[in-house]
């Protein structure tokens, strides 16, 4: 297919005035001077307002007695498209299945939220948190204790008031 080129017709030099456009631009500038519209956020003094469906750092929910809710069913490492979850299941002294090893590599993670979606016991969540800077790369692999220690609020994957969204 041949490429069609549309040639724009431009006014000849010296035959047009930019006065109107300049005034239009300046009026916007003065409008902001009188009534500022803050697009800039003074981060980190000001924190952004995270959307309810914001998917950030993971968090493991815990039972009242401090045990992780995870039952090591293996669905999150199975569903994870980035293959960032490592799980070794086992049995505790009460005969309850629990994760001996549960690690999420936050570097590999693409924060799709499927781990939360697939979890049958609502244990693993993505959350309203994004400040994960570290001095060492190894620290980005979060182990079970660290996931349980997270205290940020968790993501709502759907709007609970709207049944259709589920």
């Amino acid at each position: 297919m041949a490429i069609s080129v549309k040639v724009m017709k431009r006014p000849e030099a010296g035959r047009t005035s930019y006065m109107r456009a300049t005034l239009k631009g300046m009026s916007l500038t003065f409008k902001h001077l009188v009534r500022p519209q803050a697009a800039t956020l003074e981060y980190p003094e000001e924190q952004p307002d995270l959307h309810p469906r914001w998917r950030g750092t993971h968090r493991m929910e815990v039972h009242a007695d401090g045990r992780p809710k995870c039952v090591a069913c293996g669905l999150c490492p199975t569903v994870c498209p980035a293959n960032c979850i490592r799980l070794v299941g086992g049995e505790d002294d009460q005969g309850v299945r629990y994760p001996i090893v549960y690690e999420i590599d936050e570097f590999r993670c693409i924060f799709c939220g499927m781990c939360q979606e697939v979890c049958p016991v609502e244990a693993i969540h993505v959350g309203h948190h994004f400040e994960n800077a570290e001095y060492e790369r190894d620290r980005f692999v979060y182990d079970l204790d660290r996931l349980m220690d997270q205290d940020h609020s968790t993501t709502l994957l759907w709007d609970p008031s709207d049944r259709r969204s589920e």
Partner: protein
Amino acid sequence: MPDNGRSPAGAATVTLTIDDREVTVPKGTSLLEAAALQGTALPHYCYHPGLSAPAQCRICLVEVEGAPKLQPSCVTMAQDGQVVKTDSPEALKMRKGVLEFYLVNHPLDCPICDMSGECKLQDYVFAEGREHGRGREPKRVFGRDDFGGDVLYYGDRCVMCTRCVRFMDEVARDSRLTVVERGSRAVIDTFFDEGLEGASFAGNVVDICPVGALVSKDFLHKARAWDLDSTPSVCPGCSQGCNIELHTRDNLVQRLKPRENAEVNGHWMCDFGRANYEGLNRGGRLEAPAAGRGAKRRPAGWDEALGQLFARLQAAAGADVKIVGSAEWSCEGLAALAAVGAETGEVSARVFRSRCAADEDRLPGFPALARRRDLAPNVDGARTLGFSRVGGEDAAGGLEEVAAHDGVLFVLGDDLADQEAAFGEAASLFVYMGAHGSEAAANADFVLPVTTFAEQEGTFVNVQQRVQRFWPGLRAPGEARPAWLVLGALLAALRGGEAAPASAAAAFSWLAGERAAFAGLSYEGLGAEGAPLAAPAGGNGAA
């Protein structure tokens, strides 16, 4: 098809219609088996091809034209002119209802159930069951019961198919399991406290349990069914050579499961073999070839090591050769080793060592299967290839003559764990090929890493003189290569101009051409089930 009631072979057959398709089956075939032959998999719990069918699970109900009620297809025999509908609305409705009853007390604990992913209740409910449960009543709870041995019983998940009870009755002939109580309170239980402890084939009840009621303690919470890769193989536990599947994950064998072979092991395998996989996961493997004796040993590439070895073998031509093989290595590797030895000089000893048990342990309901006395998979293959067994029942000793040998010495696959560091000190050339290093290999001029049977293709010969293939389920560590590949290349060079086998199939066809016992067998022809050796035993030496 004209109905003459006789197939060409003379066996009586019947022709019936299943789901609008005609199928001809031998007389005495059940509708369930006939449907399977025709390509329709009917759900079933209590039916198992290796057991009797009590028709009590009611999940295989089908509509048979003319019959007043739906018929359990596992016990209804196929008859001439029968018209069977497996997916009529009536049959589907009935099966849906049966499945709903199964879920009345089922805990639905799939996330923590070891059977999840290979569970028949999961499969059937997903395929034919209701989308949502309607139960509001609380479910009855049993908890779990340790049956002893390797078996754990979760009563809540049980569907009361009684396969385990019938296995212990009919096949193991050791009635240790029974159903106690009735109705919703019914559970499988053992008599007194004895449990399944000491029953040497009890692990099979875990395999035949269609749900997660009976699970293996060894495999408990270890891996999910969908994470496992399955490779057809042969059990290395004894010379019976049960057909098995290696279930692997992360390059480790997680469990062994029996693979059906009517000639060798039926659907079963023994607990000894089942538990005997840790050796395949053993670390500390030899990973790179090395040349040089003692302190002079240096790592060498395969080309370099084999080149040097070839030169040394040529220089040693006519020497006295002693060979130590292993009954855990494939026929191709052992035959190539024997041939390399014969090509080098006079072979004065071909020996192997293997562990022996005091007696056999037979499965009464399937007498062809027993845990044999020889506790290595290729004892009969090694014997066929001219190796003879030395040493004690614990695979120790018997190598005094070999250790002090002053000619050429080959060791393949034997760890020499009981031997002194002075082993092979006097040997003019000592070649050690194995999966693991050994202190006794200090005097070896060449240490060559070879793969175990789980990491390569090859064949074993079992106690029935049956040649059986196995496939690689694990990745070989480092530069380890199959013994037939290493020795095949060496042999081709020694014989000059012969093509080295580049695949296991080529190695086997070389073996079939070299040894009369293997003549007439083809690698493809062995298939997954194997084939008997041409001659009974006592193969003649090569070349």
